């Protein structure tokens, strides 16, 4: 019967692989897959490449035997400390993890309890194996053979740990099923045993830790390493670490024979522990079903909205009149995907916060660094959010595609529909970026205020010598710099959002945001490729802006108009104009695309 279960697992895995391969027939998926594989290959292949380039180190590890023995002992100490610790905690996962669909099928099939548990254990085997084999690629020593042996040793450790976790989960579940008095006694005995063990271990560790502490005070890292290697392990401590030392011994085995010798007891321990799990009397079925339902619910994007209080549900970003342009209604709707907070409330709250940033640290005579940190905190969203736009908010066409059966029936022109989708994240990005700019500006002024109040010189000055060149005081020049930034932030937000929405229409399968959002190498490649393309497009789109501002500056110089900070906002507007025009053009193109979009079955199935 277990053969059938293995076959079931295999078929599920095969189904996933076949589905992914079928998608690769479409060039857009294929390109994403190649880029993703290339990226992963760089990470995975790098250690092997390094090994090939350093052939002299093939025969053995660059570390000496003493160092390896010390690392082995330290690793045993870590496992001894970490492995039994969860047993002290009475909470955590109960039973075995199953999907709802698996439980429905398995529990009504003519299977024994043991077989169902076996299936539950089998499910996680692929994950355990992959993690065990990937780890030595990054941290392994020596050539491929040594790395393979280390991978197998790592698998044994992970498998033992994994089974131990399952044993604990079933033990905790059993505790809820047996009479309370008996459960308390069992818990008490377990706690006393473990606390006693940890107490003895700490007592045995004390002289060792003192010696380690002394070794760490060495003059340089070479001496420290040498002293640490030479630290003596007390015999009693070594005895306590022995079980875990054996458990990880296959990872540190020097060759094939040593590995076999080390692996035998570990495999036996794994088999024993597996048997304990399989013989568990815990009634895992109910808890597994409960957990499966919880997991399904937690995956759902609707969870976050269900938690909104009944009072907050009455809030809307702004009042929607019965008549007006459809764009406003769509922005109203899309904004609620992010927050139902009233825009007027956000504006007043934001202004109060800016005022507090400008005044409070100065009045409280906080260190000037405070303003530096605040300026940095404001500066990051100020720059990043206009560039990311829809990527941050996910309230544009990406999310709308899952509702295509509803939105396509609305009597809204395609161009206006796309414009609303572009504006929804663009407005939020612009507002958030402006707030970031406000934080930077108020931090600068707060710093000056502190200077005035304390007499201590402020180090946070944006344009320290503005007066000499720009004909205005530093404070005014700073304000004008930020005034020039705002139109650019608006334009970049709009353009970036337009680009992302156009991409959603061109390559909807890559961009759509839905409950069953794709993961895996292909999706990673798609995201990387799109991010790179977006960056490149933004860079290219900024060329006309740079040329226009350059021309304005050149003209000013040629005519002989004196340099002044008052021209900054004009430059900002000039820089924004081509981006706004480009964004507008993209909206027109997007409108045509939306009109002609023939949604494939893949899109129609989104969110089902």
């Amino acid at each position, binding site marked *: 019967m277990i053969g059938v279960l293995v076959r079931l697992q295999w078929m599920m895995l095969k189904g996933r692989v076949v589905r992914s391969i079928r998608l690769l027939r479409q060039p857009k998926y294929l390109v994403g897959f190649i880029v993703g594989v290339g990226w992963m290959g760089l990470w995975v292949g790098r250690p092997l490449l390094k090994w090939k380039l350093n052939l002299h180190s093939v025969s053995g590890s660059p570390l000496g035997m003493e160092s390896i023995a010390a690392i082995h002992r330290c690793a045993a100490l870590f496992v001894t400390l970490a492995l039994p610790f969860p047993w002290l905690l009475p909470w955590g996962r109960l039973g075995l993890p199953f999907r709802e669909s698996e439980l429905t099928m398995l529990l009504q099939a003519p299977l024994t309890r043991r077989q169902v548990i076996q299936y539950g254990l089998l499910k996680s085997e692929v994950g355990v194996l992959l993690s065990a084999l990937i780890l030595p690629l990054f941290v392994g020593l020596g050539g491929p053979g040594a790395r393979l042996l280390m991978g197998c040793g790592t698998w044994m450790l992970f498998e033992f740990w994994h089974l131990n976790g399952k044993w604990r989960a079933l033990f905790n579940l059993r505790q809820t099923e047996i009479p309370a008095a008996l459960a308390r006694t069992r818990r008490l005995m377990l706690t006393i045993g473990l606390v006693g063990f940890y107490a003895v271990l700490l007592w045995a560790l004390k002289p060792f830790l003192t010696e380690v502490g002394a070794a760490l005070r060495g003059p340089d890292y070479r001496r420290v390493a040498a002293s640490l290697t030479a630290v003596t392990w007390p015999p009693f401590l070594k005895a306590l670490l022995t079980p875990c030392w054996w458990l990880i011994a296959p990872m540190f085995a020097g060759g094939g024979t040593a590995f076999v010798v080390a692996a035998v007891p570990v495999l036996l321990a794994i088999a024993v522990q597996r048997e304990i799990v399989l013989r568990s009397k815990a009634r895992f079925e109910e808890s597994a079903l409960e957990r499966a339902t919880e997991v399904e619910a937690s995956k759902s*994007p609707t969870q976050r909205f269900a938690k909104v209080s009944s009072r907050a549900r009455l809030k809307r970003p702004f009042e929607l009149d019965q008549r007006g342009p459809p764009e406003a209604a769509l922005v109203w709707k899309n904004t609620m995907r992010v927050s139902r907070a009233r825009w007027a409330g956000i504006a007043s709250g934001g202004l109060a916060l800016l005022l507090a940033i400008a005044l409070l640290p100065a009045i409280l005579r906080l260190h000037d660094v405070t303003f530096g940190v605040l300026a940095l905190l404001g500066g990051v969203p100020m720059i990043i959010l206009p560039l990311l736009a829809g990527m941050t908010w996910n309230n544009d066409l990406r999310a709308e595609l899952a509702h295509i059966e509803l939105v396509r*029936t609305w009597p809204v022109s395609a161009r206006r529909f796309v414009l609303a989708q572009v504006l929804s994240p663009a407005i939020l990005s612009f507002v958030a970026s402006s707030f970031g700019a406000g934080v930077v500006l108020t931090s600068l002024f707060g710093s000056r205020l502190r200077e005035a109040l304390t007499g201590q010189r402020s180090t946070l000055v944006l344009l320290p010598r503005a007066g000499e060149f720009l004909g205005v005081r530093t404070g005014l020049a700073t304000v004008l710099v930020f005034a020039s930034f705002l139109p650019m932030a608006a334009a970049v937000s709009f353009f970036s959002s337009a680009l992302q929405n156009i991409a959603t229409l061109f390559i909807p399968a890559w961009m759509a945001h839905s409950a069953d959002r794709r993961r895996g190498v292909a999706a990673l490649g798609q995201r990387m490729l799109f991010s790179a393309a977006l960056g490149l497009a933004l860079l290219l789109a900024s060329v006309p802006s740079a040329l226009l501002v350059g021309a304005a500056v050149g003209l000013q110089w040629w005519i002989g108009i004196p340099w002044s900070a008052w021209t900054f906002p004009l430059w900002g507007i000039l820089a924004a104009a081509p981006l706004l025009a480009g964004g507008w053009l993209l909206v027109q193109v997007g409108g045509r695309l939306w009109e002609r979009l023939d949604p494939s079955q893949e899109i129609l199935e989104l969110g089902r």
Partner: protein
Amino acid sequence: MGARAEGKGSGGEVIDVEGLVKTYGSVRAVQGLSMTVGKGEIVGLVGPNGAGKTTTLRCLTGIIPPTSGHVRIGGFDLMAQPLEAKRRLAFVPDEPRLFDYLTSWDHLIITARLYGVEDGAARAKLLLDELELGDRRDAYPSELSRGMKQKLMVAMALLHRPEALLLDEPLTGLDPAAMRRMKTRIQSSAASGVAVILSSHMLHLVEEVCDRVILVVRGKKVLDGTLEAIRQASPGLSGDADLEAIFMKVVEGDAG
């Protein structure tokens, strides 16, 4: 080809479909479908799974563009004058796709605004009460049962007083009482002059509610007419054969 009977709305065709074709690659999901639905008429669209019913409804509502053919709603061509046509129609899909982040009330308010319904709020309240969703006004879709979601979709569809109403499996997820009320609602909508296309596998519902039946098999219309006219036109069927018997005869005959 089956009989063609004049519907209630003859002379005032609200939905006019002519030579509708929809292909996906080499697959022809809909093959030259033509039909009309008159004012106040209820037409049942039936057929086996994969017959092209949902694809037809999606083409009729502008969700997917037809490969060829014409769709006119209230006299407006869906491709040439989409806004005018869409203002006159409403669609209730088989799977209620509501916005996770909007409450029931928000759904109705935005629908009212997009369709320019002057008395949107008052009508939304009326429909919520009528469909027994009054106490679920501020609920999110995740807090509604399948049937409630279906009712909300119907409320959204009826809010702007459409001339053409297209329903894809409207009774799925409803309890018997709600089914009864939904049937009455469909009939009262038709009585007020709305042209209704109802796609369903519930043949008894189609038989009970519809004035005319269109049977589609593999994207082709194989029967179109009243039940009586179909019976008369089909040799080998008894005089009291119900829709299920007709359906089975046609589908099995087609398979054979």
